């Protein structure tokens, strides 16, 4: 197992190098000039050139890439071209909101979607099954900003249970944190509940037809034990895959939800950086996202071995 993990980590190095090179070149080939964003509307061409010079944007591409790569190897992601804030500080400021949103969303999702999927599979073809599927289709089909605005109208404006917007760190107290993260997490969870409930149902339906389930029932085990200990565990591999990639997707940023609820997460940072052509920030974010995907895929693969003893590395 350890040798497998080491191999996977080593294999990710060339992936990250290719990503770094690709992102660097793609950004430089995209039209846009950070100097124009900095200078504002009144700047003359000469003034823009002055700023480009001071930011090193007039250097040949190769020089810029070598400088950036050298900084990266020493752990320096550089500074934002626009605000001059260190890139790692910017990302650090956005990590807690993003992780909080992803974790709370995933908790809500798992608590609701897996029982829903199991129930739908267990009562396959019944009204319950149809109801679960209908809720899934609805959750999947309504755009997340519409769900968000509906929740804001009901829970924040009409009932005044939660604030409309914003984020508070958990260090400022549980309720200030929870009251602000719950609605966005619930909004985002509607999509993942739909996805994972459907996935759970499909995987469970496959497994429930297997011989060992019939054997378990024949042994006189309770339905609860049959469903959750025998069937669900064997259906877990595809579910874990969806949960893992869904989690990675949330960490790399959920721009619409972050905007509607004013959560200062990585998604908004990414969009702002792209609009301002803030190269060092975009490069760092894409590298970070790639890294997250590599790690999460690795974790998913490792978890397969725990869920299914037949899988060995």
């Amino acid at each position: 197992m350890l040798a497998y993990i080491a191999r996977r980590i080593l294999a990710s190095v060339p992936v990250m190098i290719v990503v770094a090179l690709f992102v660097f070149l793609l950004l430089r080939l995209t039209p846009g000039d950070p100097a124009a964003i900095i200078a504002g509307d009144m700047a003359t061409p000469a003034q823009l050139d002055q700023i480009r010079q001071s930011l090193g944007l007039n250097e040949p591409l190769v020089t810029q890439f070598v400088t950036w790569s050298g900084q990266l190897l020493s752990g320096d992601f550089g500074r934002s071209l626009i605000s001059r804030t260190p890139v790692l500080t910017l990302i650090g400021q956005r990590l807690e909101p993003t992780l909080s949103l992803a974790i709370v969303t995933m908790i809500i999702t798992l608590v609701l979607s897996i029982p829903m999927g199991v129930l739908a599979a267990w009562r396959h073809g019944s009204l319950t099954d149809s109801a679960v599927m209908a809720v899934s289709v609805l959750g999947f089909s309504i755009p997340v900003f519409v769900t968000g605005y509906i929740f804001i109208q009901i829970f924040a404006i009409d009932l005044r249970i939660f604030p409309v917007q914003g984020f508070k760190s958990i260090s400022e107290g549980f309720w200030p944190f929870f009251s602000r993260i719950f609605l966005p997490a619930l909004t985002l969870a509607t999509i993942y509940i739909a996805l994972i409930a459907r996935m759970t149902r499909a995987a469970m339906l496959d497994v429930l037809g297997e011989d060992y389930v019939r054997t378990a029932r024949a042994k006189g085990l309770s339905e609860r034990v049959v469903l959750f200990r025998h069937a669900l565990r064997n259906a877990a591999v595809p579910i874990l895959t969806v949960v893992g990639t869904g989690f990675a997707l949330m960490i790399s940023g959920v721009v619409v939800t972050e905007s509607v609820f004013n959560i200062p997460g990585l998604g908004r940072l990414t969009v702002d950086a792209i609009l301002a052509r803030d190269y060092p920030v975009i490069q760092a974010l894409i590298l970070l996202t790639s890294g997250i995907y590599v790690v999460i895929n690795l974790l998913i693969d490792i978890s397969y071995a725990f869920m299914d003893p037949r899988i060995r590395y």
Partner: protein
Amino acid sequence: MSFLANASAFRPSRLVRSALLASVVALSGLAAAPVDAQEIRAVMHSGIRVLDPVITTAHITRNHGYMIYDTLLGMDENLKPQPQMASWSVSDDGLSYTFTLREGLKWHDGAPVTSADAVASLKRWGQRDGGAQMMFKSVESLEPTDDKTFVLKLSEPFSYVLELMAKPSGLPTFIMPERVASTPPGESITDYTGSGPFKFVEAEFEPGVRAVYDKNEDYVPRDEPPSWTAGGKVVNVDRVTWVVMPDVQTAVNAINGGEIDFLEQTPIDLLPLLQANPDLTVEVLSPLGYQTMARLNWLNPPFDNVKIRQAAMTALGQEPILAALVGNPDYMKSCGSMYGCGTPFATDAGSEPIMSGPQPDKAKAMLEEAGYDGTPIVLMQPTDVPSIAPQPVVAAQLLRQAGFTVDMQPMDWQTLVTRRASQAPVAEGGWNMFFTNWIIPEVWSPINNPMLNGGGKEAAWFGWPNDPELDEMRTKFAQANDEETRKTIAADIQAHAFEVVNYIPVGEYTIPSTSRDTLSGMLKMPVPVFWSVEKSGN
């Protein structure tokens, strides 16, 4: 295996006890015991990212400048320069200005403000601001004479010195410590020490999220009542926090729900949601408002031909463009003045072609006479900026009706600002036409107005008119000593600028602000400021 063997050391009962204790502490709010400071939470028109108010003309950075810096002079509501950090005297020949700093001026780190700081700041400003660059061509010397006094000597008459130093927008004369002001003008400052009424809380700054300003307890305001950027800047709250909300609907919900106190720009289409709330006040704080305008590129065909530029202006009209942009007549008006209506130099001189509304038949005849060969006009449309996105769409249709071939190219604003800097032919990435907006104080005189620079490819603003006659007239304006002469020259400049189609103003509009009734004392002026404002409650 060893991990599992040791896992029993984490006894569940201890874990549960710890978690419960942590939850109780958190729920009781002990984990974050904020001191109840009186704070204004404001959503401004955009998030602040650039913190140097000299390197950029971005309005949000200018607003930041007014929070933490002081200006040498102020401008009152009658548009007259007034003392702010300094008073002045002018020699009889008008060539020497002596400025004296007032008592009690201190930097946020406690050091006194000196004339060396003011001189260094003015010199940096003089390298960035268009009007100041023109002024500095006539400056012989700018030197401190002692800690409190400095002298500006001119080599030739330039009577617009005080108006430039007092201007509220564009690049105001924010005074910085000498060590900061010595930063090269193309490089952003990294030390945010000011002497203004608020202190920037750098530790709490999160670009794109929030900026925090604490009251500067050591600031000594002037005794006069506040009037625009002149008079006493009395701060009545402990803290102002600018919260960034990228979604306007969220901002509207937040002010309706009492989560923020001030919304600088209220979208016109969402006004009914706010006007129905008795706890909110919706009002225009900057009645002079904005000018929206089209700029044509003089370098590329077909707009290198003055007759075709004239035909384009004749094809356009202000009403249809304003209707698409604003829609609500309470917040828009036609205006034939390049200097903005309601300003000292406002005039209708030469504006007849644009004020007559779209005249497609006349424009068609003009095109025929000019020998227009159907060369497509590349009209850049920024799809991501709601205040500039509709104008090109309407203009494209009006131009087509007059016989122009129009190639409207949608793009994001960032691509537009990069492309408009290109002086290349259209086939090599150049352009023909784009729209943008200004606040009126940025265009209200021939010196301030960036478009009215005839310096061609080297010195003029994007579009690069090469118009020596215009520049001569501006120089005469700058040298004129009395208001009437200035007005006459300003009218001549405008008539000339319309004649050659320097640019096409397509109307004016205002944007209402919304504040909760817990706020009072918001000043009506072109720049949103937070001195004089009082807040009841926290």
